[in-house]
């Protein structure tokens, strides 16, 4: 992928590469790529959102807010821009602003569990973003707490419901207007390759969190369902995605396997074959199948990545290709 960047200085793939770096914990590399890329493509909102996330991960909150607010101007309905702005303001102790952005995040995607959890920590009342018609003065029942301490908690709850609903509803109305703005394509991309990293946020552990530990970030999470289907075929040992320069992107091996060497070897074979076939004027190598004594290695080129599926020798290649085709399309959507 770095080669591609040098070939086409205007390429937008830098955001994807930076996202992968960021997911791998290489924050400085991600920031460097994003800053460089944004200097050439200053209007690329997706890159700004990822840069904001990178600054947030690096604990440079002021810079993160600056970048994310800039992205927010053109992509008000970006789930990730809203979520990370919420995270930043929460870190600065500006809870009201944080709540506003978490509410907006949940308005865009009601299934965003990270935003819901953050909101629950900031607002003890149950999150009800799907019911904006809730009247500002309405009492919020807290039956369990009322049984234990009848007086104090109810007063607290009432105070909060009296103060909070009005601005929240206003904020939500603003978001509804914002959602109508034409930046859906940017948001789709953001949703596909970025995932909230709320797990990194440090706060006092709550019983609910202890019971349900947060799942670590998986860059190609969208592929999990398809890969699970593929790996359910008995003869398939495992699969992995690597870049054409031999770096592992994602592994779907059933057991722990050291794939670094394998990735490098597969990339070397692919590059050698591609050069040879270009010499023969037969076009690019789309896929190849190496038959070993104990296993068969099937490698498929997907844009700048290689999908490798390792199977038992008796696996049916036709079936493999059918499953692989749908996965390839998904990888193309995510990694380009």
């Amino acid at each position, binding site marked *: 992928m770095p080669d591609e960047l040098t070939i086409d200085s205007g390429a937008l793939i830098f955001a994807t590469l930076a996202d992968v770096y960021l997911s791998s914990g290489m924050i400085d590399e991600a920031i460097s790529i994003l800053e460089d890329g944004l200097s050439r493509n200053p209007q690329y909102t997706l890159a700004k959102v990822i840069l904001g996330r990178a600054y947030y991960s690096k604990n440079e909150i002021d810079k993160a807010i600056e970048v994310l607010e800039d992205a927010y101007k053109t992509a008000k309905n970006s789930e990730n821009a809203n979520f990370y702005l919420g995270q930043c303001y929460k870190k600065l102790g500006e809870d009201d602003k944080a709540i506003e952005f978490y509410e907006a995040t949940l308005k865009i995607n009601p299934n965003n569990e990270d935003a819901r959890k953050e909101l629950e920590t900031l607002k003890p009342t149950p999150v009800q973003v799907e019911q904006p018609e809730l009247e500002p003065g309405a009492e919020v029942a807290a039956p369990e707490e009322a049984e234990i301490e009848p007086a104090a908690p109810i007063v607290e709850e009432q105070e909060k419901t009296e103060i909070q609903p009005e601005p929240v509803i206003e904020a939500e109305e603003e978001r509804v207007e914002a959602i109508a703005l034409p930046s859906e394509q940017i948001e789709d991309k953001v949703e596909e390759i970025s995932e909230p990293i709320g797990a990194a946020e440090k706060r006092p552990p709550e019983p609910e969190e202890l019971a349900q530990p947060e799942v670590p970030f998986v860059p190609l999470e969208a592929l999990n369902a398809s890969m699970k289907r593929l790996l359910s075929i008995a003869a398939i040992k495992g699969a992995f995605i690597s870049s054409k320069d031999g770096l592992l992107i994602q592994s779907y091996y059933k057991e722990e396997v050291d794939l670094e060497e394998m990735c490098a070897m597969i990339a070397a074979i692919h590059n050698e*074959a591609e050069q040879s076939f270009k010499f023969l004027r*037969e076009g690019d190598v789309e896929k190849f199948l190496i038959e070993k*004594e104990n296993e068969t290695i099937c490698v498929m080129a997907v844009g700048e990545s290689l999908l490798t599926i390792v199977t038992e020798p008796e696996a049916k290649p036709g079936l493999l290709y059918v499953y692989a085709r749908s996965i390839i399309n998904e990888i193309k959507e995510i990694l380009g």
Partner: protein
Amino acid sequence: MKLDTITKIPKVLGAGIASTDGFVIESQFTVGYNAEKSAAMAAQVVNRIKQSLNIEKVSVIFYTQNSVFFIKETEVGIFFVTCHKDANIGLVKIKINKIT
């Protein structure tokens, strides 16, 4: 080795045997296809795979934009077949396994 059992399959463009250093030992190719280039390429790819994956006898199928290439290392040398993308790949594979 009876190369014509392979080359008579529809849309097979040619077949041949190369030495490990890429020289043609025997070949039967349709007019317009260069057996020498294919043999050199087959040997280069086989050597790379052997080096990378430490395989004793390499057997590999390459699918390119225009064609499909079968390369199989045998006792005699490196057996290679070039066919059109629309050829019956399964049938070619069976025939290759039979004659090698």
